[in-house]
């Protein structure tokens, strides 16, 4: 199973998802992220899904819960780089991705994190 890497940039954690997401990887990411947020005291998380071709309901729900969980640790989560085809499919599936905010790219994501409190 491929573990998703978590990088630290200042007060922000950057999570670039480069691989085909298996259920186990996503659940593992949620655990790893919880540990990292607590360990680093990070205030923001950017999850980069620009390389992700498929987001189904399980992955979508898990990304939402990652957002809610981060909130519990006083950190905001922004999902960046969602592909148009993925967005169109999520709309059709009826998924609204509560718990996370979204931005077109990491740069805008960082701005969102900076502006929010």
């Amino acid at each position, binding site marked *: 199973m491929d573990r998703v890497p978590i990088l630290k940039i200042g007060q922000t954690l950057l999570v670039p998802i480069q691989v085909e997401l298996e259920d186990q990887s996503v659940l593992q990411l949620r655990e790893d992220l919880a540990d990292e947020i607590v360990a680093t005291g990070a205030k923001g998380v950017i999850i980069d899904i620009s390389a992700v071709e498929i987001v*189904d*309901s*399980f992955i979508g*729900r898990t990304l939402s819960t990652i957002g809610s969980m981060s909130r519990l640790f006083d950190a905001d989560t922004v999902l960046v780089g969602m*592909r148009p*085809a993925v967005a*169109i*499919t999520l709309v*059709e*599936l009826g998924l609204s991705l509560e718990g996370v905010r979204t931005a077109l790219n990491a740069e805008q994501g960082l701005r969102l994190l900076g502006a929010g409190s």
Partner: protein
Amino acid sequence: MDEVPIKASNDVVHVRQKVRVAAAGTGMSLVDQTKIVTAASELARNTLVHGGGGMARVEVVSAGSGRAGVRVAFSDHGPGIADPGLALTDGWTTGNGMGLGLSGARRLVDEFDLATEPGEGTSVVVIKWSR
């Protein structure tokens, strides 16, 4: 035709990969490819989680007018769905994590067929055509 056994959670990824290859081969648009692969992912997971494991059959099909499409058939010998009508309504969407995601998957494909027998198992066949 490709047969993919669905026994463990990484088999969901295998199903996606097979469906993606088949869809790309038909020349369907990227958005349509994404839709059928995502629908297949939903249904494969259902087969695993609710059906106790089963099988997916992926094949490229063609319509009379020469259009190509992807047909994916899921089958399991699990408990079946007691109230299929209810399962297909939006009240059972995947938003709250309790639904079967069937209604969502149905919106993503062109043809959708569900057959289920409580105690015997479930079969779902979906087709997406290239335009």
